């Protein structure tokens, strides 16, 4: 193209043949058509990466020889007469930072040149930062994966110890019963416990091998410590100590390429290992465009992921300035942008309609993949995400985990009918902020919006109150709005939304606490467990009780006892040792959400500082529970669970 005279008006060799000149026409007409990033600076940046440099014309006259807006570029190997050297022109390794040009050295007429030079330098810096960020990102994934696998192990272990305890307990009971009562009491006893799983006290069960012990052993064997992940983590921390920043050492990139496949072994739910779903596509042209309006707009606010600690600060998306009052709108300024991720057309349409009706702008995505793509395209566009869980291609939990790599702030709300304890715990582990029970109601959505977008509300004080005249507790929540009355409380149908939402909320609170618990005391010791185990009751009863409390007395006919015995006991212990429910009610909604998230990402200050608070809140939280519980008792509400 350089050779072709017909393009002379666009680009041509300089007379010396050692540089080429890009003329105004290229900048104005060609570039926007052929290059993804249509601005000239981006093009220059690309050239810089191939070691082409702008030729500066420092003539005293200050007049460029090729006319205004023409740029000359030079590369030592790039010459009109030396095509054989083309191979030597390569993309540079991550560019070292350029020293900023000294501005005093140039006359005023060169200021434009200086500015564009410093712009280029900034671009290089941004690129370097971007690369560092990518490295950090990868490290972060690894750490998260590691934390998750550790948590899994801990859960299994506490479950195992639980089984042991329950076995010992059974032995105790058996002995006591055989001493004090007749055979008949055994039968009736086992009758009542029949539904609650395999722990039943069979009258002739004394000769059977203890199933709990067997199970405990299986669990422990099943989750052998992942030494590879541990080693990886060790290496990682070593690298951190040695280099300060992994991005600065050439070796670190090697390390990370190793890390890739290994992380995939750590966790079952590993959404990161799939290269198709890389959160940040590799390559400059696909990465963030620093010139995109949103990024320029956001420069004063640090990008949260580059420093996890920033998460505890105020959300980076500032509320728009007040002034544009909209009549009847909930919102102060601009409409919230909501991303609704839902594979079912009916649900998506209803959800969109509800949200539009609440004066939000809604975009929908049909599956997790689409959602991740949308967020990756512009991480700051959305204010809140409603995320279905079970979807084709990429489920909501994995999608959330990937979105969290890009934006830790945005509230992500799970929309699901799976409100089992361990489901909810999973949602939170992967960075979701709340759960909206399906089928969602308009009021349920309002509640979520008010709770998580308080800063955008016209009247933040109204959060939770406006919504909920029937709910005596919500008025005192200071905007928490944790509950919804579910509209006019359907008396029929055995499907009360408010009940589900509230019971979930309790479960959610517990889920968050369970995590904290794990971080504090990895394995609930037997003595801790025994502390809430009232004497005289069997383990099954306790566990059943516990299930009921977690579900806030979901209907007793919803018999999850057996299920929980098998799966959830470990989690239950964590939750029960701490005060169930309520403890998150105190802090404002924003803080609460961040704390939950802090629990997810950081093993650091967040949870630690929370613990005493939780203890302190215990009394208050307990106080308002019974009243809630009474309201929660809906006929046959459990039928829909699962």
């Amino acid at each position, binding site marked *: 193209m350089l050779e072709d005279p017909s393009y002379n008006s666009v680009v041509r060799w300089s007379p010396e043949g050692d540089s080429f000149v890009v003329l105004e026409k290229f900048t104005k007409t060609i570039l926007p058509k052929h290059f993804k990033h249509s601005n000239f600076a981006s093009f220059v940046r690309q050239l810089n990466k191939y070691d082409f440099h702008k030729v500066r014309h420092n003539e005293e006259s200050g007049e460029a020889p090729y006319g205004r807006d023409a740029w000359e570029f030079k590369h030592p190997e790039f010459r009109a007469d030396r095509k054989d050297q083309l191979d030597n022109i390569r993309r540079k390794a991550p560019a070292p930072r350029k020293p900023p040009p000294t501005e005093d050295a140039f006359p005023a007429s060169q200021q434009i040149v200086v500015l564009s030079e410093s712009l280029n330098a900034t671009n290089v810096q941004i690129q370097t930062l971007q690369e560092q960020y990518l490295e950090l990102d990868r490290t972060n994934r690894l750490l998260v994966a590691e934390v998750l696998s550790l948590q899994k192990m801990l859960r299994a272990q506490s479950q195992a110890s639980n089984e042991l305890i329950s076995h010992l307990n059974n032995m105790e009971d058996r002995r006591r019963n055989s001493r004090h009562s007749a055979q008949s009491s055994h039968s009736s006893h086992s009758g009542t416990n029949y539904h609650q799983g395999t722990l039943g006290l069979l009258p002739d069960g004394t000769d059977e091998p203890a199933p709990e012990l067997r199970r405990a052993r299986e669990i422990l064997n099943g989750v052998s410590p992942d030494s590879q992940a541990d080693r990886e983590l060790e290496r990682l921390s070593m690298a951190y100590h040695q280099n300060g920043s992994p991005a600065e050492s050439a070796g670190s990139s090697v390390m990370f390429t190793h890390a890739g496949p290994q992380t995939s072994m750590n966790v079952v739910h590993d959404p990161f290992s799939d290269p198709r779903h890389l959160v940040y596509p590799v390559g400059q042209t696909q990465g963030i465009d620093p010139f995109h309006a949103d990024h320029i707009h956001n420069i004063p606010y640090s990008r949260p992921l580059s420093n996890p600690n920033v998460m505890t600060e105020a959300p980076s998306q500032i509320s728009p300035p007040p002034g544009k009052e909209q009549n009847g709108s909930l919102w102060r300024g601009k409409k919230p942008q909501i991303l609704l991720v839902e594979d*079912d057309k*009916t649900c998506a349409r*209803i959800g969109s*309609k509800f949200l539009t009706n609440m004066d939000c702008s809604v975009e929908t995505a049909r599956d997790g993949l689409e959602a991740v793509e949308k967020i990756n395209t512009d991480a700051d566009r959305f204010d809140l995400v409603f995320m279905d869980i079970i979807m084709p291609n990429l489920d909501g939990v994995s999608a959330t985990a990937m979105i969290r790599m890009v934006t830790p702030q945005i509230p992500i709300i799970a929309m699901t009918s799976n409100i089992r304890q361990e489901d909810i715990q999973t949602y939170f582990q992967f960075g979701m902020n709340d759960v909206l029970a399906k089928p969602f109601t308009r009021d349920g959505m309002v509640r979520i919006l008010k709770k998580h977008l308080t800063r955008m509300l016209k009247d933040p004080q109204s959060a939770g109150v406006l919504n909920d005249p029937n709910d005596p507790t919500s008025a005192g929540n200071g905007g928490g709005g944790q509950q919804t009355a579910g*509209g006019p409380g*359907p008396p*029929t149908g*055995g*499907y009360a939304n408010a009940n589900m939402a509230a019971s979930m909320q309790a479960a959610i609170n517990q889920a968050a606490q369970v995590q904290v618990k794990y971080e504090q005391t990895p394995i609930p010791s037997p003595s801790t467990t025994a502390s809430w185990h009232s004497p005289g009751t069997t383990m099954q009863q306790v566990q059943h009780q516990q299930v009921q409390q977690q579900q806030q007395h979901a209907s007793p006919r919803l018999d999850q006892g057996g299920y929980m015995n098998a799966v959830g006991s470990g989690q239950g212990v964590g939750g029960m040792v701490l005060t169930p429910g309520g403890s998150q009610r105190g802090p404002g909604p924003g803080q609460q959400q961040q704390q939950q998230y802090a629990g997810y990402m950081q093993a650091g200050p967040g949870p630690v500082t929370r613990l005493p608070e939780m203890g302190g809140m215990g009394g208050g939280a307990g106080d308002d529970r019974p009243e809630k519980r009474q309201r929660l008792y809906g006929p046959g509400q459990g039928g829909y669970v699962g």
Partner: protein
Amino acid sequence: MLKSDEDSDDEVYFANMPDFGDHVDNAIFSQILEMDESDHERDFSEPLVINFFEQAQDTFEKMDQALASRDLNELSTLGHFLKGSSATLGFNKIRDSCQVVQQYGHKLTVDGVSEPDENVCLKKIAEALQAAKVDTAELEKQMKKFFGAE
């Protein structure tokens, strides 16, 4: 819409709404009707409901196939899928049948207790599917009448 309008709206809709019996959760369904611009042109809810019945028909056919090939996983997925839509519309009977399909597709009873016998599961699913079809047909009739009458 202002919040204060809503309670009175609910009253109105409850009063105006025909009785779909135990097929429909009125509270949920009325919320959807509420989204219509006017009571006379139900340009949101009507296509939604019609679309649902198409979707249900489609899903039932797929369920029949999955049942024939004893594909419990697929049945569970399909059950979950239709459960979501029917629940969102407040179509409780259909939802409950779908729940049964989903649960037994996972080899679980409705109460979440393991049911290892595949034949039992398939039988339960077949029953629930049949019930869902009957309920859907019945409800479709009622809905068509409801929307047609307006």
